[in-house]
């Protein structure tokens, strides 16, 4: 090969191939095929499994929003006494939720009666793999591109500004995908910071399964971290919250499978929609044959929760988690009362 351009391009390709081989090798060789935060939570759950009545399975939105201490106190004040466990895992897909549930049930928890699923988990293509190797949804090109198409699909990109916006979106997603491809199954390197972080004051780290990493951030730091106006973003989301769209047949099936698995094991499944997640679910109890606790209402988004309760545009902060849990206790008590009534 004498052409210097071809030689150079071959050089690049060789480097990329070596990198890809390293990634694949490391992913295969890294011990522990499970997502580190899932493993931690499962170990934690095992320690208290026989005292838990209700478990919440969902994404980081659950992880950050449900404070068992506040929830249990709120329920107790309404005459419902139970202990709960927050099994929110960052970036959880529907299929992975099924895996989480099966691993929980493998522990044979003595008192477990209720399981609450988040309606808006991620439609990952690893969904059918039960021995899932968790890597976050946005970091996988094969998941990213369909997601990106879904995000931008249907829009008409007519102006230059819109095209630039689209390119920006693609770049940011690709950047996240590229720069995080070496997380190595959420392995030993980069997630350590999260587990070194102290728990949210007032919540019990460990046995309650409620972790907060954001306590060190002030509002100014958050503003720096996310230069776009957070409040504006939230206000826009609040405006868009009411209409809902269908879940999609494939993901509806996943949810149905999860619900069936719970029922088969004698549990009472519930579904819960989180604030600000209007897209992927449909409030159709007949389809899903279960009750949905809808926390995605304009009252909760626009009134009960204010921008000060948010860590970012999607996740609640510590104060938001407590506020949300208090609101949830109110609604959950009603649902459980209705269940108990003949």
């Amino acid at each position, binding site marked *: 090969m004498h052409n210097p351009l071809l030689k150079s391009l071959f050089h690049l390709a060789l480097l990329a191939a070596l990198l890809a081989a390293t990634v694949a090798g490391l992913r295969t060789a890294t011990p522990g095929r499970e997502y580190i935060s899932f493993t931690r939570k499962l170990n934690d759950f095992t320690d208290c499994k026989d005292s838990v009545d209700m478990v919440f399975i969902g994404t980081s939105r659950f992880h950050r929003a449900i404070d068992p201490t506040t929830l249990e106190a709120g329920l107790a004040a309404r005459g419902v006494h139970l202990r709960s466990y927050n099994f929110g895992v960052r970036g959880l897909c529907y299929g992975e939720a099924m895996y989480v549930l099966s691993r929980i049930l493998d522990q044979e928890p003595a008192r477990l009666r209720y399981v609450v699923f988040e309606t808006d988990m991620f439609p990952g293509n690893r969904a059918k793999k039960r021995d899932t190797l968790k890597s976050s949804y946005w970091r996988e090109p094969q998941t990213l591109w369909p997601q990106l198409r879904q995000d931008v699909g249907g829009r008409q990109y007519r102006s230059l500004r819109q095209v630039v916006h689209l390119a920006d979106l693609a770049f940011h997603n690709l*950047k996240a995908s590229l720069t995080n491809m070496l997380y190595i199954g959420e392995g030993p390197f980069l997630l350590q910071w999260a587990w070194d972080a102290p728990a949210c004051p007032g919540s019990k780290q460990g046995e309650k399964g409620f972790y907060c990493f954001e306590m060190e951030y002030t509002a100014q730091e958050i503003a720096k971290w996310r230069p776009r106006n957070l409040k504006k973003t939230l206000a826009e989301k609040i405006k868009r919250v009411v209409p809902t769209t269908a879940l999609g047949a494939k993901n509806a099936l996943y949810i149905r499978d999860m619900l069936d698995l719970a029922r088969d094991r004698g549990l009472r499944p519930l579904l819960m929609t989180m604030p600000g997640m209007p897209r992927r679910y449909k409030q159709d109890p007949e389809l899903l044959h279960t009750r949905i606790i809808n926390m995605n209402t304009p009252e909760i988004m626009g009134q009960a929760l204010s921008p000060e309760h948010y860590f970012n545009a999607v996740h609640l902060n510590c104060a938001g988690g407590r506020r949300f849990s208090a609101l949830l206790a109110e609604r959950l008590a009603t649902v459980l009362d209705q269940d108990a009534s003949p």
Partner: protein
Amino acid sequence: MLFNSLQYVFFLGALFLLHQATPHRWRWAPLLVASYVFYASWNLKYTALILFTTLSSYTGALGIERTAAKRRRQILLGAVVAINLAVLIVFKYVDFLIDSLNRFFVSVQTGGPLEPMDFLLPVGISFYTFQALGYAVDVYRKDTPAERHFGFYALYVSFFPQLVAGPIERSRNLLPQLRQRMALSHARFSSGLTLILLGYFKKLVIADRLAVYVDAIYGRQQATPLEWAVATLFFSFQIYCDFSGYTNIAIGSARLLGIDLMRNFQRPYLAASVRDFWRRWHISLSTWFRDYLYIPLGGNRVSPGRLMLNLLAVFALCGLWHGAAWTFVAWGGLHGVMLCAGNLPRILRPGTAPHRAWSSPLVKAAKILGVFVLVTLAWVLFRAQDMGQALDIYASLASLPLNPGELTFNATFGLLDFNHCLAFIALLMGFECLMETGRFDMAAHEGSLRKQFAAQYVLLMLVLLFGTYTSNEFIYFQF
């Protein structure tokens, strides 16, 4: 468009392919367009400013060359210098002058306060203005012929890899290369890629990681002596890795496009004297001041008193070049004082060779350490928000001994991050020591391709595994 953004990677990749697809004769054209697009991505309006600088220095230099009379040549050069410095002063220093005048008015209790102009500081204005001024002086001195091709000259001023933070190129080096065939070779491509990855390593793995701690400590009003010491030490490496990382990416990018930019850093923290430090740090700026200010002031061929005065003046101006604040002037002045002190034996006893004992490895190591400590202490002035904070930090650092228990961490910067920082600094310095011996040079064109490939792979892995992706701007963009 930041070098440490994915947009830049795509931009450079696309330009590389376009550049290769363009006939040699026209390769300057896509480079010029890309350079203006690069700058316009930051601020479209301010591209007019670069164009103005380009036009004024281009026409001025042509006028100087066509004029035989010395007096008229001087007037033309003066006009070019005055016009370009005026632009620099208006956009960079006018608010500093107004603020200083207002302080003066308050102190003498006379005159009303003047309103600041609040201009947005054009990115890289100090760099491209100095580059254009250097060219005009070179033409005046007949060191270089005036460039007649406006496209080449516009590219010389605006060439994107070095547009916003240098190196401040010399017309003798860059202009002839724009005329030549910008040929690609595999070795050139490989060495350029290595430099780019080395730059990303320095910026994303070291500088941005250190910045978290430095910003947190320097952003406070109060810190313990140990925290100030660690933050200052970290800043010393942060600014080096940030700026030299930028330079590596710039030189590497230019090399992919067939152009060799001048070296801007040569392991400055291995300098054995402050004078040596300035031969290794921001070489393009220090040589600019040497060639266009220090030597015209008389250079070394003046009386000792005048020499020291010249050094102080040149370094105070060098400090002011960095930023419109008294802290920068003081930083430059301090370096001037250190240089004067270092030059004293040479000035007082000219022609005397140092004793042999002074060149033993142990003494050299002690000298390197001493210079590093002095330079690091001077960085306090560079990083402090104002003179008050700088003096507080010096006072705090003076209250030794340091107590290890005073070092505290939080969720954003934990012990693990601290250890990472120390490990990467050690890795970098170890690597620089290796390069100092001459056994390996990453900037070399003709290194072993296998070694280059191995270095690229290791750097890429380090960047991907340990990089911090916060899109921090490069520190020198503000100058």
